[in-house]
């Protein structure tokens, strides 16, 4: 029972975080306009993608992917796949943050919309690593759930 509640909480929290991150990057509620140009600048500031077309594709696609994945987790649909995608996205975010930190870039994270403050890299990396652990645990649990009870459990049931 405790495990069930824990995983339900993990799913809802992870889903809410990704859903909110996606929404904020799609629409700027302060300006009442698309947030894509600001997110485009945030991605470009990492200097990881050479082509501006690639930066634009990432700026348009990533927020929607976060929103869809977050929504799937919140509503408990395709949870295993959504958790696995979350883990993959978080690995990319961690790599990008670590790379920016190692190069001494003075940039904003862009994680939850455009900010003027410089990213606190150790804190952001710690947060993303914690979320990655949650996503991996959730994906692992859902994978086991999909595969059904173990042969020993099934035998016990019979």
């Amino acid at each position, binding site marked *: 029972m405790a495990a069930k509640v824990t995983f339900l909480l993990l799913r809802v929290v992870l889903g809410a975080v990704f859903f909110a991150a996606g929404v904020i990057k799609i629409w700027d509620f302060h300006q009442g306009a698309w947030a894509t140009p600001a997110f485009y600048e945030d991605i470009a500031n990492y200097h990881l993608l050479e082509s501006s077309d690639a930066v634009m594709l990432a700026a348009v696609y990533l927020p929607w992917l976060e*929103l869809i994945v977050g929504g799937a987790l919140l509503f408990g649909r395709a949870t295993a796949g959504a958790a696995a995608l979350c883990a993959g996205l978080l690995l990319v975010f961690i790599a990008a943050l670590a790379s920016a930190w190692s190069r001494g870039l003075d940039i904003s994270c862009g994680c939850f919309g455009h900010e003027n403050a410089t990213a606190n890299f150790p804190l952001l990396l710690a947060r993303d690593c914690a979320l990655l652990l949650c996503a991996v645990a959730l994906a692992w649990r859902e994978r086991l759930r999909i595969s059904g009870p173990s042969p020993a459990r099934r035998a016990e049931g019979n």
Partner: protein
Amino acid sequence: MIARLCKQALLLAALALIPAFVSGAIQLRANPQKPLQPGEIRAATVRQWGPQVLFVDARPIERFEAGHIPTAVRLTAREWDALVPKFLDAWEPDKVVVVYCEGGTCDTSREIAERIKKELQIQTVYYLQGGYPAWRQK
């Protein structure tokens, strides 16, 4: 089960393509602004930064004397060694460096921005999209 997990992940990734495509198309229609290259910055963004910007004029001296952004310091490839000390005097660690040239097809500002990053180890350096003419268009 791994196959099912991958199938779910692929399905979600594909599902996100639909709204991304639609929103991208709507935005492109509403605002056909030229996309930025990495390291490039728009004049509108630089204006928001205010006094924390150190402008670098990468144009020849005669163009600089004909008109330049107030507070800008000169730095060109030809006079690099002579002008670097003046640039370093004006630079402070909390300043963002924005290099500009004549606009249009001029590549000088991008080259100078890259050189500042590589040779002077200053990372917060951008070059202005559209150059000096873009700055003058309010």
